């Protein structure tokens, strides 16, 4: 087929293109991934019984703010990575803001604790299950974020995959906040971040394979 014929073919009855493909796809992906994470959390882990009590403590909201801030950063980065020719800019480095904030809180908490209590602040009671539970809860959002990205045009598939995974990890961690009893910043700065890093790493590895177009 000659190129002119191809051009004719592509243009024939091409029709109008709906605007806002990126927000539409990510809106749907977040809704599905968020619902999936909440459902898995309720079915397999259960909402913490003292949730109403815990919600009165500022630390509960600080804890929830960590995944939500990373969610916002990941969303900004994926929306840029999804479009050819748009630079990611500081959206990637912005990951360091919530991470740095929780580490600063963790440093304060560790500094003011007695030396004998410091390890307990890091390990809490649930460090052996926390990262895996977060990774498990992020599975629906992982599938949804890759679905969204596959319908768009990332030119850097590994980076796009990593931020898709981080997006999913943040959704999973936010849902996990409703179950998890831990409140100490050193715990959050270690195991929550590790839990979100698992899908991010998986996304970076899957990106080049799944995000070609």
């Amino acid at each position, binding site marked *: 087929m000659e190129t002119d014929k191809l051009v004719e*073919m592509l*243009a024939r009855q091409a029709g109008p*293109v709906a605007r806002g493909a990126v927000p539409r796809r990510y809106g749907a992906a977040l809704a599905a991934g968020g619902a999936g994470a909440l459902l898995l959390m309720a079915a397999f882990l259960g909402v913490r019984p003292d949730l109403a009590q815990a919600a009165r403590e500022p630390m509960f909201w600080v804890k929830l703010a960590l995944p939500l801030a990373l969610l916002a950063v990941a969303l900004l980065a994926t929306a840029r990575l999804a*479009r*050819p*020719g748009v630079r990611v800019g500081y959206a990637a480095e912005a990951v360091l803001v919530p991470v740095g904030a929780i580490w600063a809180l963790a440093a304060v908490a560790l500094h003011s604790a007695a030396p004998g209590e410091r390890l307990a602040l890091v390990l809490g009671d649930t460090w052996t299950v926390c990262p895996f539970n977060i990774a498990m809860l992020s599975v629906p959002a992982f599938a949804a974020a890759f679905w969204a990205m596959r319908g768009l045009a990332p030119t850097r598939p590994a980076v796009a995959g990593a931020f898709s995974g981080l997006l999913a990890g943040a959704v999973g961690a936010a849902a996990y906040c409703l179950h998890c009893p831990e409140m100490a910043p050193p715990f959050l700065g270690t195991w929550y971040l590790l839990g979100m890093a698992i899908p991010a790493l998986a996304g970076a590895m899957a990106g080049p394979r799944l995000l070609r177009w």
Partner: protein
Amino acid sequence: MSGREAHLKALLLRGLSGEAAAYAAFLKELSAFLRAFLRGRLARVPDEVEDLVQETLLAVHNQRHTYDAAQPLTAWVHAIARYKMIDFLRRRAGREAMNDPLGDEDDLLATSDEEAREAKRDMAILLAKLPDRHRLPIQHVKIEGLSVAETAKLTGMSESAVKVGIHRGLKALAALIRE
């Protein structure tokens, strides 16, 4: 340069809002720029330039929903052309190291090449390999110019299946090229 950017962008935006003639003019003018751009960068494989022009045009069409009017058209097209060129070089790599400098996006609209050489790969042959649910809608609507309703009647498919078939079929065509 900026005049070309503004001109092509206006054509694309009219095309995206449904003006088929403007969209055809956009693709036609773009193909000449792509040809010159790729010919300059693939001097060692001149026979494959037209294939890559066609592959890039198909990608531009399939991904046209990712263009944002606030964005310079040149940056968007350059990123697609560069992505397709790297993918192409990677596919034929292993045999020899190809490391032509990729150049700057400003070069993209600098020169134009209207003279199409023959493509080595025939899109028509690839189209024939698609399953019926993709091939028939593309054949009737995009090549023969029948309406979606007529094609639905002719093939027994629903109108939405015809539209989806065109959309997915052109993506499947891009995937066939990558194999």
